[in-house]
C-alpha cells in the first residue's frame, strides 16, 4: 500500500549563506539525514526536545519550508511536483495544526471568515455548500453552530484548538501534521482534545504525524514513535516496545525524566 508520507535522507540547513564579503554566515543543521515513513491510517509520533528539529521536519512536510536536500513523497506524489503546483496542492492533501491555537487564528477575522478560505479556495464549494460544510465541521469538533460569527479572543485555548482543527479538516485532507497540538492546553482540556483527535481519525480515515515533547501524551495516542535528537532520528519503533525497552541512551534519559504520579 502507498505510504502517506515517505521521507528519505532529508536535510535542512539554516544559514551558511555567502555574505557580501565572501564569508559564510553561521550554519545550523536543523534536520540531518532523516528517513521515516507514515503508513496510511497510522499515528506516528515524533518526540524530542526544543531545538531537536521536529518542527522543522513538520514544516517541510507540509510545504511551508523547503528542504536543503533529500526526497519527500506525500501520498505517493513527489514533494517537488507538489511545490511546483503551489500551496493549494499541499493544502488539499495534508494539513497542519499549530501549537498555539490562538496565534494560528487571525485576531481580526471572525471564525467564519477564517474557515471560509479553505472551503472556497481549496474545495471550490459554492455559498450554500460552504455554509453546510461549516456546520458539519463545527459539529465534528463539538463547537456550537454560532461559532462562525465570533472572533478568536472570545474562545478559550481548548475551544480555539478545536476551531483550528476544524479549519484543518475543512480542506478534507487525508494526512494531518499535528505540531504539539495539546501542549498549550490545560490537562483536562488536553485529554478532551486527544479524545477528539482519536475520534476524528476514525471518522475521516486520517493519518497523523503527531509532534510532541510529552512522552505520556505520545504513548496514549501513537502507533509508532520516532525519537529525534539534534536533528537526527535516533530511535524508531512501536510505542509499546519503545517505552518498555528503550535502546538509545537519550530515549532512556527522556523516559526516566518524565514526572510520574
Amino acid at each position: 500500500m502507498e505510504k502517506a508520507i515517505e521521507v528519505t535522507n532529508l536535510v535542512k540547513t539554516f544559514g551558511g549563506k555567502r555574505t557580501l564579503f565572501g564569508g559564510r554566515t553561521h550554519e545550523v543543521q536543523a534536520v540531518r539525514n532523516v528517513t521515516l515513513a507514515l503508513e496510511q491510517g497510522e499515528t506516528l509520533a515524533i518526540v524530542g526536545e526544543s531545538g531537536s528539529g521536529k518542527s522543522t521536519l513538520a514544516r517541510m512536510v507540509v510545504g511551508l519550508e523547503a528542504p536543503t536536500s533529500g526526497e519527500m513523497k506525500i501520498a505517493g506524489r513527489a514533494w517537488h511536483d507538489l511545490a511546483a503546483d503551489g500551496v493549494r496542492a499541499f493544502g488539499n492533501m495534508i494539513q497542519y495544526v499549530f501549537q498555539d491555537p490562538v496565534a494560528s487564528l487571525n485576531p481580526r477575522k471572525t471564525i467564519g471568515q477564517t474557515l471560509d478560505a479553505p472551503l472556497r479556495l481549496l474545495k471550490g464549494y459554492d455559498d450554500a455548500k460552504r455554509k453546510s460544510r461549516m456546520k458539519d465541521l463545527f459539529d465534528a469538533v463539538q463547537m456550537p453552530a454560532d461559532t462562525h460569527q465570533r472572533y478568536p479572543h472570545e474562545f478559550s485555548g481548548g475551544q480555539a484548538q478545536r476551531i483550528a482543527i476544524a479549519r484543518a479538516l475543512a480542506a478534507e485532507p487525508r494526512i494531518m501534521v499535528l505540531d504539539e497540538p495539546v501542549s498549550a492546553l490545560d490537562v483536562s482540556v488536553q485529554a478532551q482534545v486527544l479524545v477528539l483527535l482519536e475520534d476524528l481519525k476514525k471518522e475521516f480515515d486520517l493519518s497523523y504525524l503527531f509532534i510532541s515533547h510529552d512522552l505520556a501524551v505520545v504513548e496514549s495516542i501513537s502507533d509508532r514513535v520516532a525519537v529525534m535528537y539534534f536533528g537526527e532520528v535516533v530511535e524508531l519503533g512501536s510505542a509499546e516496545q519503545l517505552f518498555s525497552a528503550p535502546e538509545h541512551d537519550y530515549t532512556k534519559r527522556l523516559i526516566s525524566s518524565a514526572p510520574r504520579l
Partner: protein
Amino acid sequence: MSGSATMKRVEVIKESRRPTAWQLLMNNTLAAIGFYLICAVILVAVAAPLLPIPNPDATSLAERFLPFGSPGHLLGTDHLGRDVLARLIWGTQVSLLVGISASVIAAFFGSAIGLVSGYAGGRTDNLMMRGIDMLMAFPYILLALAIVAVLGPGLMNALYAISVVNIPFFARNIRGITIGLSHREFVDAARLSGKGHLSIILTEILPNVLPVIVITMSTTVGWMILETAGLSFLGLGAQPPQADLGSMLGEARTQMFTHPFVATAPGLMVFIIVMSINLLGDGVRDALDPRLRAGALSRPRAVTRIERRDTPTAQPAGGAALNVVELETSFEGTKGPEPAVKGVSFSLSKGECLGLIGESGSGKSVTALSLLGLVASPPGIITGGRVDIDGEDILSMPETKITSYRGGKVAYVFQDPLTTLHPLFTIGDQVAEAIRVHQPVSQTEARAKAVELFKAVRLPDPEQRSSAYPHELSGGQRQRVGIAMALANDPDIIIADEPTTALDVTVQAEILRLLQVLREERGLALLFITHDFGVVAQICDKVAVMRYGKIVEAGATSEVLRNPQHDYTKRLIACVPKPGQGRAFLEGVRALLDREARGRA
C-alpha cells in the same frame, strides 16, 4: 456612616471601569480641546460658500491695508484690498484639503511599500528599503523643491511633492509591523488554506496593520499642512489669486514691517490647525494603543492596593513560616471588583514544600503574587484576609517594609528567566545587585558571593559564566541563575511560579532535583505553583488544588493522589496520562467524559 463609606467605594470603582476609546480620548483634556478646535475649523472651512463673506479674490485698491475691525472687513484687507477674513476661510479650506489628501496618498503608497517589503523579506525587502533610504537621505524641503521644479509650480504638484516626501515615514513604520506579523502562525495557516501572497497581504495582514496606519496618519496630517504652507509660502504651491494659508503668508511677507496684521491671521490659523491636529493625533494614538487602554497609562503602584473589609485575627502561628488566612484578591471589572482569589487559606512550615496546583485561570499565580503585594494595581486590589510571615501580618505593614521583604525574606522564581533577567547586564552583575539591595557589602564582595551562589545552583563553570549575558545561556542554565538570584539573601521562603514549565523534560528533572537539594540544605519553605500533577508528586510534601479562586482540596501529596476526595481533583488526576498506561488512557478519559455527559443529562 457606613452607608457613605460604601457610596464612596462604589464611586471609586465606577471611575476605574475600563473606558472605551472614545471616553479615553475625551478624558484627555488636551486631545479634547484639539478635537473641538479642529472640528470648528473644518466646519467653518466647509461652510465657506454659505457664509456671508465677500469674494476672496475681489480686489479693491482703494481699500488697501484696512486694519482689523474695519466695517465690512473684520480682519482688514491685504495689499490688493482683498478681504482677509474671506481669504482666510477659503485658504483654510484649500490647505486642509491639500494636507489631508497628501497624507492619504502618502499613507496609501507608503503602506503598500511597507507591506510588500515586510512580507516578502530578503532581496525584495532590501531593494525597496534602500530606495526608501535614498528618499530619506535628502532633506525633505530640497526633495520637495526638486519635485516641484520638475513638475512646475502649482497646488497639485505641491501635493504630489509632499506626498512623495512622506512616503518613507509610512513605509518604514508599516514594514516593521509587517515583518513581525508575517511570521505569525495565522499567516502560515492562511497559506495552507490555499491563499496566495496577495490575498494574504490584503486579507490577513492589512486588517492587523490598519490601526497603525490610522494612528500614523492622524499624527502626520498636521505636519503635511505645515509643509504645504511652506511650499506655497515659497510661491511653489497655490498660484495667485487662489488663497491658501501659505501663499497668504508669502504675499504678506513684503509688508511685514509696515502692515504686520496681514500676516497675523494666516499665521495664527496655521498654528491653530497644526496644534489641534497634533494634540488630537497624540490623543488618538494613546486611546487606540491597547496597552494604554488596559490601564497601563497609570503606572502600577509599588504595592498592590490593599482595601480589606475586615482583617481576620491572628492565629497561633505554630512555627509556620508562612500563614495565609482567607486571602481575597480582586480585579476591577466593568461591574466593580471581581474576586479572582476567593478566601484562600494555607500554611507552610520551614523546610516544607507546598504545591499549589490548578488550571489556567484558577487564581494560583494571583495568590502567589498577592503574598507580597506584587499584583499590578490598578487593576488589582487585595480585598481581604491576612498573610503572616513569622507571625506578622504583611498586609498591615508600611510599603517600604513590604518591599524590603521582597527578595529578602521571601524570594520569587518565575516561569521564564529570559523575561525576568535584564538582557543588557551580565548575570553576575544582576545577582550582585540583588545582594547589594539588601546587604551593605562592596561590589567585589557581592560579585564573589554571586559566584558562590552559582556554584550552589550547580551552574557549570561559575567564575567564567558570571560574566555571561542571559541570552548566552540555555533555558535550564538561566533558570539556575533565577534560582541563584532568589537565594541571594538567604530567604526563608521561596515562591516558585511554574519554574519548570518552559523547560524540556530532562532539564526539568535536573531543576527539580536542585530545588529539592537546596530545600534540604537550607531548610527553605517552598511554595510551588504548577499545573502538572507529575511535578507535584515528585517534589511536594503537601498539595492544595485550586479551582475558580478557591482551594477545593488540600492534604499530604501521597494522600491526595492516592485517594482524591473532590470530584475536580479526581478529574484532574484522571486527565494526566501516566507513563506505561498507553492507549488505556484515552479509554479512561472517554469513559469519564461519557459519565459526565450523562450526569449533566
